[in-house]
């Protein structure tokens, strides 16, 4: 673990810093969802949800299976469009955007089931994460010498720093399909980090990991948050981990918000306890 | 392991290249770009057999042409243009005298290539029709008849059946939707102006296994005659569909590529009476077949199974071979040489004269029309006949003599098209005579 510290220290702050949110001070609101409702056909996935995410915090979304956590993340990064309600980002109300447009605004995420690009190497996956920072057009890319090559090398430096930070130097050129699960999760985090997001969404970053791997991952998440001030919203099942690393917690159940607050507050909330103990809804 | 593999490949390539470079000078080389495989193998096999068997006959019976043996090089094209090019390139270095490309696509390939290489091409009853203009196409021959002759011959047949008056008659053309199938349209339209019939073209898309729409249309519109420019499976299906809608078979006339046994046999008895154009005789009644039986088939030297002897396409292959052999003979006479170059062969083809006496001497009396080739006319006079299918006897019978086509209309079209070609490719007209 000590190596993590020393490595992360090498990463310059400028590398993983915000852009659109520059005007927003830590502790101010970065993102807010307001009265969001989402339904598929007749099935309500989210009902009238409101909460905010402050700049620089680690915000957890928890809840039992089927509570609508993933749907919530999907709303935030534009994969689903809610029928009602609004999403405010950096103090502006967000129009209905496509996921790739939202990525350009500075929101990145990882997936519950690893969604790496299986045919590509670790390095290429992370370089793909740099997509929003690369500008050269098709013609420049085709000619390569000059602008495209320069851009590639600049972004390669960033990618290498992330690789160093996540300690995955040895698997740099390995096709990700060949990597073990835990490493794949780490590469996916790297890919999301490469985008230098203002807001990083992590969908169950520790699912299926053993204790050691979970500890590693928790450390990486905290490091990202500490060192670069990246705002993080995460879904996680492991209560212990959630309570340890998050600043504030939103609790969903059956698509409704049943609790919001610091870990201690949430822990003492009766509705939350009932939901987790499986008290019958009536 | 890898080296060994490389070595094998290298060796094989060496074999390939050495094959190409060895040229035999002593023989008269006739390449045969046959297609015994692929979608049209059904038609390619008998033609290739006929071509090869006749060449073998000349070798076995006469000891070659003017004492020089024939060397037949068969090369499989599968009716595929690219393979045809490969075949041409691989055989042209061996002293090949004349090419029968046997496919529209390959013919168009060879027209400029062979002309540049100085090797004559004989596209007999196919290929580029306007190549009949020898002033522009110096090395391309398409005697004795081409598609436009065919169109005119069909109309002439209809004229003859109707007392020379077909005003107001409806004539439909069912054609393969390709360059080949579209060939007769222009001629038929010109002739429609002249004779006052109405013309409808009905295209069938490749390969033509499904022709319901086309034949329902014919059933609705009931044209007085249906002509067909079909190829491959399209022929069989069309004849079957015509039988299905009980179209009178004797008013259904195919071009020579739609008139073989293969086209009518699947339909059985119902194909009885179907007509097709032809520019040569068919059947095994000619004296030459006794020789072929004796010198080729019985000697175990037949090219195929020997079961194709006497069929329409076998006869056509044999006829093509016979014309090639006679052209070579003519060339030998002109140049007073026995061994020929392609250029000399070309002269022989240009001076070729087929007379009844000549054909009778070859054991093929009345087999083809009498014609002669000249410097400005590489297409011959465009004579042709009509044959009819007798389903009970399973054979074709001639129902007309080799008659003339309307050269007045056709020659104008030939001149127009060939001069357009000449302009596009900047070819100067040759001076003739």
């Amino acid at each position, binding site marked *: 673990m000590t190596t993590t510290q020393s490595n992360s220290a090498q990463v310059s702050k400028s590398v993983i810093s915000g852009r659109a949110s520059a005007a927003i001070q830590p502790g101010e609101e970065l993102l807010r969802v307001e009265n969001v409702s989402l339904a598929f056909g007749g099935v309500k996935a989210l009902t009238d949800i409101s909460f905010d995410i402050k700049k620089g915090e680690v915000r957890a979304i928890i809840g039992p299976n089927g509570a609508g956590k993933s749907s919530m993340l999907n709303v935030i990064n534009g994969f689903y469009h809610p029928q009602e309600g609004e999403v405010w980002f950096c103090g502006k109300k967000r129009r209905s955007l496509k996921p790739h447009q939202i990525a350009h605004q500075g929101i990145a995420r990882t*997936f519950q089931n690893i969604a790496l690009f299986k045919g590509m190497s670790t390095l290429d996956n992370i370089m793909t994460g740099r997509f929003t920072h690369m500008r050269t057009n098709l013609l420049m890319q085709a000619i390569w010498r000059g602008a495209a090559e320069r851009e590639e090398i600049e972004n390669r430096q960033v990618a290498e720093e992330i690789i160093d930070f996540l300690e995955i130097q040895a698997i740099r050129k390995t096709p990700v399909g060949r990597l073990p699960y835990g490493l794949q999760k780490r590469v996916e985090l790297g890919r999301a980090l490469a985008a230098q997001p203002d807001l990083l969404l992590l969908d169950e970053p520790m699912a299926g990991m053993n204790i050691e791997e979970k500890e590693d991952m928790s450390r990486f998440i905290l490091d990202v948050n500490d060192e670069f001030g990246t705002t993080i919203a995460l879904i996680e099942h492991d209560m212990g981990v959630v309570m340890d690393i998050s600043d504030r917690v939103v609790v969903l159940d059956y698509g409704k918000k049943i609790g919001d607050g610091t870990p201690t507050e949430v822990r003492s909330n009766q509705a939350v306890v009932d939901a987790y103990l499986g008290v019958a809804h009536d | 392991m890898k080296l060994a593999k490389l070595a094998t490949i290298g060796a094989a390539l060496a074999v390939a290249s050495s094959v190409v470079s060895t040229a035999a000078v002593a023989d008269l080389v006739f390449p045969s770009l046959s297609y015994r495989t692929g979608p049209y193998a059904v038609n390619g096999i008998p033609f290739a057999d006929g071509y090869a068997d006749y060449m073998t006959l000349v070798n076995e019976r006469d000891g070659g042409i003017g004492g020089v043996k024939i060397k037949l090089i068969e090369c499989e094209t599968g009716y595929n243009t690219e393979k045809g090019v490969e075949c041409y390139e691989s055989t042209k270095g061996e002293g090949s005298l004349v090419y029968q490309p046997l496919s529209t696509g390959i013919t168009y390939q060879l027209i400029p290539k062979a002309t540049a290489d100085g090797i004559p091409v004989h596209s007999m009853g196919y290929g580029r029709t306007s190549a009949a203009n020898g002033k522009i196409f110096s090395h391309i021959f398409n005697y004795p008849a081409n598609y436009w002759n065919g169109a005119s011959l069909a109309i002439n047949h209809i004229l003859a059946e109707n007392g020379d008056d077909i005003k107001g008659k409806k004539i439909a053309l069912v054609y393969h939707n390709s360059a080949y199938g579209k060939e007769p349209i222009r001629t038929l339209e010109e002739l429609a102006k002249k004779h006052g019939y109405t013309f409808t073209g009905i295209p069938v898309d490749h390969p033509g296994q499904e022709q319901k729409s086309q034949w329902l249309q014919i059933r609705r519109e009931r044209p007085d005659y249906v002509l067909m420019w079909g190829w491959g499976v399209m022929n069989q299906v069309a004849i079957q569909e015509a039988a299905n809608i009980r179209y009178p078979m004797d008013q259904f006339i195919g071009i020579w590529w739609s008139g073989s046994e293969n086209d009518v046999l699947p339909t059985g008895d119902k194909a009885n009476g179907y007509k097709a154009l032809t520019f040569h005789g068919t059947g095994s009644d000619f004296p030459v077949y006794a020789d072929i039986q004796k010198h080729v088939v019985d000697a175990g030297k037949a090219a195929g199974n020997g079961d194709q002897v006497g069929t329409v396409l076998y006869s056509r292959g044999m006829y093509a071979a016979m014309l090639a052999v006679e052209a070579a003979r003519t060339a030998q006479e002109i140049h007073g040489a026995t061994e020929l170059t392609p250029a000399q062969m070309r002269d022989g083809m240009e001076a070729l004269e087929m007379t009844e006496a000549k054909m009778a001497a070859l054991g093929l009396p009345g087999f083809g029309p009498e014609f002669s080739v000249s410097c400005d006319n590489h297409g011959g006079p465009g004579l042709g006949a009509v044959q009819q299918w007798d389903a009970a006897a399973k054979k074709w019978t001639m129902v007309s003599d080799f008659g003339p086509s309307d050269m007045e209309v056709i020659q104008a079209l030939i001149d127009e098209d060939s001069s357009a070609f000449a302009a596009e490719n900047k070819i100067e007209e040759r001076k003739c005579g």
Partner: protein
Amino acid sequence: MSANFLYTIEVILNGLMAGVMYSLVALGFVLIFKASGIFNYAQGVMALFAAMTLVGIQQGQVPFAHLINAAFGTKIHHFGWTVPALMAILLTLVVMILFAILVERIVLKHLVNQEPIILFMATIGLAYFMEGMGDLMWGSELKTLDIGLPSGGSLWLEEATVGWGAEGSGFYGLFIDKLDIVATGVALALVISLTLFSQYTKTGRALRAVADDHQAALSVGISLRKIWVIVWAIAGFVAMVAGIMWGAKSGVQFSLSLIALKALPVLILGGFTSIPGAIIGGLIIGVGEKLFEFSIGPMIGGATENWFAYVLALVFLIFRPQGLFGDKIIERV
């Protein structure tokens, strides 16, 4: 009734019949795709091969005669006997089952769990192989297929409907090819027996289980390899039926393998995994392309059927990307 209206009916009717013929080919694709996720490019060649084998057996041809003659200078062609049609069909079926076993043993066994595109590629290799092998075995000459199927327009229908047309409209009566009627019957029988087979036999149920979920089927002890052999054998049988129906019209020759191209739009329309989809897709394509050729075709030069079938399918796909009856594509994050 006006002649034009009746002609439209006739075109629709014949379009339906043509559609059945397309469905016959499409069925074989669906069977294999459903059970093993393989897009079997060789289906058309299988139809050709089966039809060639059928005629070869029926007429007592010596397999590989040409090769043997070339190698040993012999002159054998036929055994000199003919086999009754039904017997020949059964023997062909045996050959197709053998073929299925060989395909499984030699090819599929080694390619378990590969991506679909690779299995697709393998069937391309198979198609090449069978194309050459079929010609080597039976020769590439045209073969007339005669197993006593009827052909020609149905006189009964013509006479029954000839009066429908207005006086002087020159209406002949509706036309339907008797062969198509038989084909419809055969297709119907095929679909019913396939449905019965998959509903009421143990093997059939296993087949469906595999189609639903490979892993789950494996875990309850269904042998995937056995299933594959069965599916390929059935597909071989369906290919033979298609080969017979199409071959009856055109004779058995290389072009028979091209009927696969007629089945592809049917597949996209009906969905790769649905047997009813193959039938209904075929009917829609058949009617659609015939109507288009009938109404619009003459204005734009005709011969539109080949591409129109695909365009029709494409239009459907834009609204239903998984085909009419295909399994819905669910995207999850």
